[in-house]
């Protein structure tokens, strides 16, 4: 496939997504149906943490990691900001402002803006904290976790292995954590060490899972639809390929196997 074809497909893909997002928003506003959306493990813990924070006057710690605004990570940064916005929205009853940390300086304005909107009652400036990237950031956050005693850490962003330092420090202090990383090494660490973990594109579905926003929920469903389509396409192509290699497998048999696989996949999906 040459570059031109790829570009044509790219344009098509974006166009279809635009149409889908518009349509879903249109319907989504009317009936924001919770059961259409997957349950995300760990999200249901957030209200509890918020409660504890409110009860004991402890802030939440929200971390962007190294996600930067301006590059190819911008959509992720926006999704994270949206997620945090809804989390902070639920913690409004608290008398102490959440702490927002990041290691990409370009994200600082985003964090300020986030806190200013979601937490109008307080001074947002000193609650948004930037530290130099990677290990220095991890060290600073660990130290900050000792000083500020957050009720919980919600880390959604770009982390590497240094996430281990922060999670371990949180763990030692009995502070619960929810983590998701755009980077694979950070994701592995999150899986091993965080109390709760989101994986991959669940990060983008998280905002709607904590909000009452029907439109956002619809977007999460679009995400699932795209993913399902890709899996479906992959399965079909795979089966086609297998049927070529193994002549004994007739077409109907392959189709039956594909159908079973898809049903199993759908079942597994529903169970989550």
């Amino acid at each position, binding site marked *: 496939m040459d570059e031109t074809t790829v570009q044509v497909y790219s344009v098509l893909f974006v166009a279809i997504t635009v149409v889908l997002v518009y349509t879903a928003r249109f319907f989504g506003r009317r009936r924001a149906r919770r059961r259409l959306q997957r349950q995300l493990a760990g999200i249901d813990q957030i209200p509890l943490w918020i409660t504890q924070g409110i*009860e004991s006057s402890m802030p939440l710690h929200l971390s962007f990691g190294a996600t930067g605004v301006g590059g190819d990570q911008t959509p992720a940064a926006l999704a994270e900001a949206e997620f945090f916005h809804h989390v902070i929205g639920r913690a*409004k009853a608290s008398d102490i402002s959440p702490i927002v940390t990041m290691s990409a300086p370009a994200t600082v304005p985003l964090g300020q803006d986030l806190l200013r909107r979601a937490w109008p009652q307080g001074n947002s400036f000193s609650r948004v904290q930037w530290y130099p990237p990677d290990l220095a950031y991890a060290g600073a956050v660990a130290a900050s976790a000792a000083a500020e005693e957050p009720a919980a850490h919600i880390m959604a962003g770009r982390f590497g292995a240094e996430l281990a330092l922060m999670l371990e420090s949180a763990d030692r202090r009995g502070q619960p954590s929810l983590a998701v990383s755009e980077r694979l090494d950070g994701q592995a660490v999150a899986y091993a060490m965080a109390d709760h973990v989101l994986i991959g594109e669940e990060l983008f579905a998280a905002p709607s899972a904590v909000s009452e926003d029907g439109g956002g929920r619809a977007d999460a469903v679009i995400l699932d639809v795209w993913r399902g389509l890709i899996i479906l396409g992959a399965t079909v192509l795979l089966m086609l390929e297998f049927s070529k290699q193994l002549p004994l497998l007739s077409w109907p048999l392959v189709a039956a196997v594909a159908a079973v696989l898809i049903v199993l996949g759908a079942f597994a999906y529903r169970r989550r």
Partner: protein
Amino acid sequence: MPRLSLPRGRRVDSALETPTAPDLLGLQDDRPLEELDDRLRSLRERSAAGSQSEAESRQALYDVDEVLTSPEILRKPGGVISAAALSKAQEQQVELLKDIVGGAGQVVETGGRRFLPSAALFSLSAVPRALGSAVLCLMVSLPFVSPEFSEGQLPPSEFGEDRRGATTVYDLLDNLTADDYVLLAFEYGPAAAGELDAIADLLLRHIVAQRAKPLIVSSNPIAIVHAQNIIRAINRSVAASGNQLQNGRDYFILRYLPGGSLGLRELSENFADVARVSHKGELTGLTFDSLEDLAAIVLIAERAEDMRNWAEQVVSEVGGTRLLAASGYAAAPLAQVYADSMEQVVSEVGGTRLLAASGYAAAPLAQVYADSMEQVVSEVGGTRLLAASGYAAAPLAQVYADSMEQIVGLIVGYRDAYTYGEKLQLNFGPLLLGAHEPDVEPAGEPAAQDEQPSEADAQVERARATELPPPTELPPPTELPSPTARSLPTTTPLPSNTAPPTATDPPAATATLEMVRVVEVSSPLQVRIRRGPSTADDILQLALAGDMFELVGANADGSWYRIALSPGLEGWISETLVEVNEVTRAALLAAQSSASARIPDERVFLWREFDLSLGKNRPRYYQVNRPIADDIPEYVLLRDRSQEVPRLEAMTFGTLAAVLVIAVGNVFYALGALRRRRAAHSG
């Protein structure tokens, strides 16, 4: 759980048909403030503070229904031993439930701000942590304490057949000449210094030893500073030889590239401008038209994303530029995918799918995907389909589509660095005249030569005909420096053990009957002969199984033998690799001459074609061991290698310790979980 009755007209807004926080808030609205307990009153006051609309304040409270009926607790057992294993948060949740549901009128004792226990540094729970840390620290430091603790094989002196990527890095750099410029990207911070400094140091030394000029760039400002320090260290190490690298003459540090991937985009599109200014804002005097004027682009990166950015933003913009990469282990899996041809990853797909599926099910979401994606990639022949449907518009789009062909060479981690260093040392070392040339001939060599244009073949043949002395007519030692031999410019090359015996042994007739003690290499692998009786000493040359050397002596404990390599030169070999025999001198000489005779020509003269296809560098043909009048081997040979071996061994011990800690810890916790589960069942 107490049933809550809702006032008329209140909507029950929940999938679980239980009252939600907004409902409760509404409920509280209907009750006089005095009736509320302290906690709810303060909550209400807070939520009522400010000018919040009703909708906002409804959302402001946590969802009580979610607290009361947490699916985490009510859900079915998720696995074999998960039923009773509550996470910390879940345990807190249970406590909270007890507080809320169990004890009416019970006040939550928060004790000031300390609702949760603070760091339990000195409690019992800190014991396993301390124990684990102690084991790790102890084992890592063992090799530095005593040479007794040396476990694990050292990496080979030569990249194996399966490491073509690494060989390519070496060979490409080895073919640089004085008028070549190499873009050397430092994309790692001090945190990765331990892993990548050795590679960076080696690559820099290799480049400058060839008299090529590195242009150092980075999109990380601290990395630029760090690069300067590596150069300073190189200068310190060669101070004795009088050589010093000078900024603006031997190397150039270009300005910092801000903006991550956007900065790299700028580099690729505007290289002429980027190269014009140094990191201090001064003019470099370099005039390039584009990246295509460079001989190679070498990237030293800590993370896969940097690798991807470079492959995507820089290399894909330059037709035919090849990216050589060195990475840490963290970035390796992804980089390897780019570097290797896809077929390798894919060829094993088939019966193994099921395992792959379960292997990745650990990440529940990934599972379904993992299989299908892999399959599309493999079975449909290439990633283009994905690029079209899934990726296309995403920033990650082109990753698999484009960059795979872009990274042509890859070195990974400290073990490769060691091999690279060995190889460099061997190639620049003074004693590599003909015999026992490291076998750098890749498996695909004949095929590659077949693809060469006929003109190249002719050129190669011509060179062989004119420059390659036939093995039987090796010149006497004093005349040995042939145009193809590497040697220090200042020293007369020492003769190798391939020298005809008659030249050095006048009383041949009597001497040949004399019995001598010899060592015969018994290890099936290539073995190293070193300058001193330890693995830390420099390698003088390599030997193969069956090679014989005269035994001259041994060290105190007999673990190393001193052997004669050639008149006037002795080396050391580990006793574990050889057998000691007694043979006549004639037999020894015969063995040595047959050893030299079986070295094929190609080992001495390796011809390799590199189509760099970059501007002025358009197709040229190289010898690996070409004339080296220009080279400055001091940069390679004066490298401090004293800590190299203990470091490697410390890594081995460290990994062992990590395995130990992880295995023991998990067995411990798994048993605990099982016990709790059994207790829960019986209770």
